[in-house]
């Protein structure tokens, strides 16, 4: 049944029909009719952010922590251009979000009207798809299709540009069930390819699961099936930054994260394996290092829903196009039907080798003296928050990598980080989105002081909506990650890589009405963290840490996996045993 209503009303109606509970947004002239509709209803909550970039990252945080579509609403012109970074971020990390932008009236498009921008042109390259709706009659269909496109296949950001006259005009609203689309990506994998993989698994001597964000994208069933598969096969498993939590960090077969700042054992296993099973990961350059030296001896299988991810940079022997959960279900069936065979003897030798690598203890560090090491701060944070219903977001830099190394994730959707674009300023607004979705959970944004300053204004949002987000800043007064590269690769010439004229973070928090805590003493750290956790309200935690600490392990760009820098003299002996490893 089609109902007549205004375009603005259709927007709200479609969001309600799609089960949207919250919209992150910022008003302006071109979206006033929609804001007027939002005012007159109470099914959808609107969160007024302080900057449109914040709205989009908040929608991302909401989406990643719930598996649902995150929605942002912004005005034309500057509102839309401020959304571009968030859209690009969501595109690279495959996050399903919908951004609604206002546009000047259809009859003024192309005239350089006030706050006119070619939003469709600007965002074409940073959305999975976008639409300019010129007729109110088409708005309902477009809104429903947008949800479908954002969540089907490889998820991603979509944008609808709605001219103001289309919002005012009355038209026929197409119901969700009337949505038409030809976009139906294939979810079932080719059974022959799945059988080939099952056979390879039965004979592999040195297999490894290399899992990624695609497992999280595929939904909780995928993580469940992955766990079953790992347990049934006893194969070791590593994950990218984006896939953390799909397999529990406490799981017996867990090798830790792989890649540029991944664990020694994970990278060595990838380098020496004879069967690599990529599940929903995209052979990113932070993972592969030097391409021609990437896992030279292995047969490679790749399960991915996006054909363009397969054979993009690394040649794979067994490509399987499909959704992780669907493919794993079939794979388990086939493998079980084949008699659950693995090469037990080969595997046991493989595990012996892996356990040797583990002895390198690549994450070890020494907390000595009166200055807090960032690793120690995170180790304590992990110990003190583990038992809570906890969600972690991060900014971008060394702190992000340390968080990935020193925190353990037991479930998917608990870890929100900007991986592909590496957007400083992501974590704070993302934590707001997560907290909106999970009001009673402990939501912590692990930040560097420089990143945090990029979207610090959102503390006002947390205050306004009583969101108890905890902003945990590892303050090294440096653009740490940049400084590290300059130290290692640019002759210690620290060009513009320190944070000058920093605010007093405690006073800054207080200026917003939030709580500020500063800690510089390792012995006082536990109490300070407990104070942060138990405080009923937003907290800005300024943790003063060692200024020149480097993040290790590290595979320098352009190097193969087995030329990892461990950076700690203590491990020298063990490294020799491990092979050609540079220290």
């Amino acid at each position: 049944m089609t109902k007549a209503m205004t375009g603005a009303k259709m927007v709200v109606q479609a969001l309600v029909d799609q089960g949207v509970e919250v919209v992150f947004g910022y008003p302006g002239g071109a979206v006033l009719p929609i804001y007027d509709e939002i005012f007159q209803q109470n099914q959808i909550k609107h969160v007024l952010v302080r900057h449109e970039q914040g709205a989009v990252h908040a929608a991302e945080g909401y989406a990643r922590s719930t598996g649902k579509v995150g929605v942002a609403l912004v005005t034309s012109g500057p509102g839309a251009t401020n959304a571009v970074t968030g859209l690009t971020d969501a595109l690279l990390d495959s996050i399903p979000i919908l951004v609604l932008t206002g546009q000047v009236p259809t009859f003024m498009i192309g005239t350089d009207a006030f706050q006119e921008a070619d939003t469709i042109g600007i965002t074409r390259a940073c959305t999975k798809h976008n639409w300019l709706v010129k007729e109110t009659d088409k708005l309902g269909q477009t809104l429903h299709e947008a949800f479908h496109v954002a969540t089907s296949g490889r998820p991603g950001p979509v944008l609808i540009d709605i001219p103001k006259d289309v919002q005012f005009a009355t038209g026929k609203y197409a119901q969700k069930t009337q949505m038409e689309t030809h976009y139906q990506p294939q979810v079932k994998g080719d059974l022959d390819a799945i059988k080939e993989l099952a056979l390879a698994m039965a004979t592999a001597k040195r297999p490894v699961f290399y899992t990624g964000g695609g497992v999280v994208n595929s939904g909780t069933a995928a993580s469940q099936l992955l766990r079953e598969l790992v347990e049934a096969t006893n194969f070791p498993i590593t994950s990218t930054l984006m896939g953390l939590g799909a397999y529990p960090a406490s799981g017996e077969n867990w090798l830790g994260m792989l890649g540029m700042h991944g664990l020694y054992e994970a990278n060595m296993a990838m380098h020496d394996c004879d069967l690599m099973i990529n599940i929903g990961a995209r052979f990113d350059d932070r993972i592969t290092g030097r391409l021609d030296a990437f896992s030279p001896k292995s047969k490679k299988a790749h399960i991915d829903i996006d054909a363009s991810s397969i054979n993009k940079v690394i040649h794979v022997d067994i490509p399987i196009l499909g959704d992780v959960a669907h493919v794993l279900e079939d794979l388990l069936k086939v493998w079980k039907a084949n008699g659950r065979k693995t090469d037990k003897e080969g595997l046991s030798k493989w595990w012996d080798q892996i356990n040797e690598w583990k002895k390198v203890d690549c994450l070890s560090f020494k907390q000595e003296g009166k200055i807090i090491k960032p690793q120690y701060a995170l180790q304590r944070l992990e110990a003190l928050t583990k038992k809570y219903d906890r969600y972690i977001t991060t900014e971008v830099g060394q702190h992000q990598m340390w968080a990935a190394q020193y925190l353990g994730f037991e479930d998917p959707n608990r870890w929100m980080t900007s991986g592909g674009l590496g957007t400083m300023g992501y974590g704070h607004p993302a934590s707001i989105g997560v907290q909106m979705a999970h009001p009673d959970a402990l939501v912590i944004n692990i930040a560097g002081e420089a990143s945090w300053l990029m979207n610090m204004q959102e503390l006002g949002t947390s205050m306004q909506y009583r969101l108890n987000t905890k902003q945990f800043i590892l303050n090294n007064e440096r653009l740490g990650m940049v400084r590290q590269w300059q130290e290692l690769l640019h002759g210690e010439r620290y060009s513009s890589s320190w944070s000058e004229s920093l605010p007093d973070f405690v006073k800054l928090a207080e200026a917003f009405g939030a709580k500020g805590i500063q800690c510089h003493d390792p012995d006082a750290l536990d109490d300070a963290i407990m104070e942060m956790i138990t405080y009923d309200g937003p907290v800005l935690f300024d943790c003063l840490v060692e200024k020149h600490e480097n993040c290790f392990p590290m595979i320098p760009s352009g190097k193969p996996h087995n030329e990892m820098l461990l950076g700690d003299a203590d491990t020298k002996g063990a490294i020799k045993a491990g092979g050609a490893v540079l220290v």
Partner: protein
Amino acid sequence: MSPLKLKKGASSHSAYDLKTPFSDTVERHTLAVIVENEPGVLARVIGLFAGRGYNIESLTVAEIDHTGHLSRITIVTSGTPQIIQQIKSQLGRIITVHSVNDLTVEGPSVERELALLKVTGKGDQRIEAIRLADIFRASVVDSTLESFVFEITGTPEKIDAFADLMRPLGLQEVARTGVAALSRGPDAHV
């Protein structure tokens, strides 16, 4: 739509899959891309090629099904087998793209291009131009006492050859449509 799935029963040309996918040989492929005829669809396709640094040797587009709102874009592109594969996969990701067909691998196909050439000259040059046009089966669509406009249809190579011959005979201007291509035989791509 999935470029990983080659058509069942495709001819020997589909042995493409057996080649080393990461070889360095640059190949020329003709792709037929069926798209929804929405404003901006061409920008999406061209933006993809520009943004990812792929080559476009020729591109033609026109509506082919008015009621179904479908257009056909014929793209001639070149790259290593891996790049060609990426181009097809990336095209397949565009929501308004309905199908991507690689006419170069999916069996024999016919390719045609139309060109108009303006040639000016007098006396023997003029007679020679007409004589060559006749051999190439180009027709005269406009003439004055000192000029001809020829219309020629054929493969891009044939048009290249004709233009090369016309150059010393007073070729002034060329307008080419780019390649239109269809697979041979009864099977249709829409």
